[in-house]
């Protein structure tokens, strides 16, 4: 497949019908939560698109993000996606290894300097090279080198976007996110542990079609992260009615009531799970009866127990109150004693008041 041909030409060569392409555009628009009216625009843009080079770097990660993407069953769509880009380096996926792989990366960088897209999954450890190196190059050095020539960076997964689990307290490796290190390139964060595969591909398509998507405060594309799980949750009516499951096997749980009490982080988690769902739209955690962990939010790992309700304090307040009460008793008793002493001295200073003491003139 040549990089010089437009997507339209490539598809035509491969005998993909116009109807197939329209179907692809329609489902992509749906996935990206774009209004159906945008379908013709997507079609027109994609058609003229030339395949950009993509370099995918994996640092402190668990390969869950790549798994999420490649194990996704909607193979056709992802195939089409990869037809639209040229994935020149992805060390988990590529056949070449060792210096050959690194050579491929260097070549891609040279050929497309300033134009390629950098995808990163995993967080970047601190100064100690022992934490993670690839081909003898520290993660940080590699990121800085590749990022320098990138047109834009896509940080896939909560680790790349926010530091994720490696950054969880006490953050032994000194892990940081991509945006902690790179300040001079557009960065799109696609958090999630892992992110929804359709969202990864959707963002790539959106990126290729319309350029840098509209991002929120945390660098996430608003199209997928614009609503909280809670806002789009089918169990929301139960929240409003005050009907909650108290445990995983009570009547409420069986009736599908809201999981807020069981620690659901839906209200503060911005992601598309409730609408896009997982496994080709089959279900998502809440539908399976489990509270949202908030995995696509920063520091989700440190937000107290997954099963502790969002409104509750993360530390032991009961104990604090007891300690405070004890401290208050001691301080209060001391203060009270001094007040009593003050009053006693006033009683001691009392001079008997007689009728002669009443007139100020006297």
């Amino acid at each position, binding site marked *: 497949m040549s990089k010089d041909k437009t997507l339209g030409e490539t598809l035509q060569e491969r005998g993909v019908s116009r109807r197939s392409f329209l179907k692809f555009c329609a489902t992509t628009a749906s996935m990206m939560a774009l209004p159906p009216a945008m379908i013709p625009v997507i079609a027109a843009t994609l058609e003229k698109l030339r395949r950009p080079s993509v370099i995918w770097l994996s640092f402190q990660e668990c390969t869950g993000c790549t798994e999420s993407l490649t194990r996704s069953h909607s193979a056709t769509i992802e195939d089409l996606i990869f037809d639209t880009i040229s994935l020149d380096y992805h060390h988990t996926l590529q056949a070449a290894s060792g210096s050959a792989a690194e050579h491929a990366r260097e070549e891609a960088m040279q050929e497309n300097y300033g134009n390629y897209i950098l995808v990163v999954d995993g967080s970047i450890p601190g100064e100690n090279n022992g934490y993670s190196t690839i081909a003898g190059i520290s993660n940080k050095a590699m990121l800085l080198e590749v990022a320098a020539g990138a047109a834009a960076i896509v940080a896939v997964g909560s680790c790349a976007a926010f530091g994720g689990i490696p950054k969880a307290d006490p953050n032994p490796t000194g892990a940081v996110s991509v945006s902690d290190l790179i300040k001079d390139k557009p960065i799109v964060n696609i958090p999630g542990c892992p992110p929804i595969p359709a969202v990864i591909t959707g963002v790539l398509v959106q990126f290729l079609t319309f350029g840098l998507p509209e991002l929120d405060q945390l660098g996430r594309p608003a199209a997928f992260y614009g609503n909280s799980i809670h806002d789009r949750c089918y169990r929301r*009516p139960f929240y409003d009615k005050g009907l909650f499951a108290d445990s995983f096997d009570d009547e409420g749980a069986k009736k599908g009531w809201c999981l807020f009490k069981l620690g659901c982080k839906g209200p503060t988690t911005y992601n598309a799970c409730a609408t896009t769902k997982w496994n080709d739209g089959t279900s998502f955690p809440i539908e399976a009866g489990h509270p949202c962990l908030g995995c696509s939010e920063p520091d989700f790992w440190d937000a107290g127990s997954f099963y502790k309700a969002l409104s509750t304090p993360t530390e032991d307040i009961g104990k604090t109150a007891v300690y405070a009460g004890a401290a208050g008793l001691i301080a209060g008793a001391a203060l009270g004693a001094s007040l009593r002493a003050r009053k006693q001295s006033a009683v001691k200073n009392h001079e008997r008041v007689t009728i002669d003491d009443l007139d100020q003139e006297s």
Partner: protein
Amino acid sequence: MTANGMPASTIASSAPCAPPTGNLVPLLHEIRHALTRWLEQGEEHVIDLRSIPLAPGEEDSLLEQLGEGEVNARLSITGPSDIIETRYPAVWLITHYNENESIIGRFIEICEVPGILKSQADDIRAGLERLEDQLSNAETRA
């Protein structure tokens, strides 16, 4: 019974099991408005069912209420797609599947014929080329 042979109370009574989001009736109204607009102004309308939060069972209930009408077409385009005209003419249900027959998109379109059902100019052109090739090949052979 209504003219459609459907009890008037069906919409209300067959309301979804599990937690209703309450989105079903508004959706049916959106369809009604779209039909009116088509009749008055010829304006087409598309609803992406993925973009609307629906409780489990609610989508089935919606499809049940829309029913099936006179047209039922299956396209083979990188995985099948079903184009069904519902009980209400000009209300089309379009379901896209991937090659594993999993649903990857579902739309309701209000129009005379969904665009994707029509033959596409590019495909017609390619088809014409193929036909011409075929004919010239036949002539050569002949």
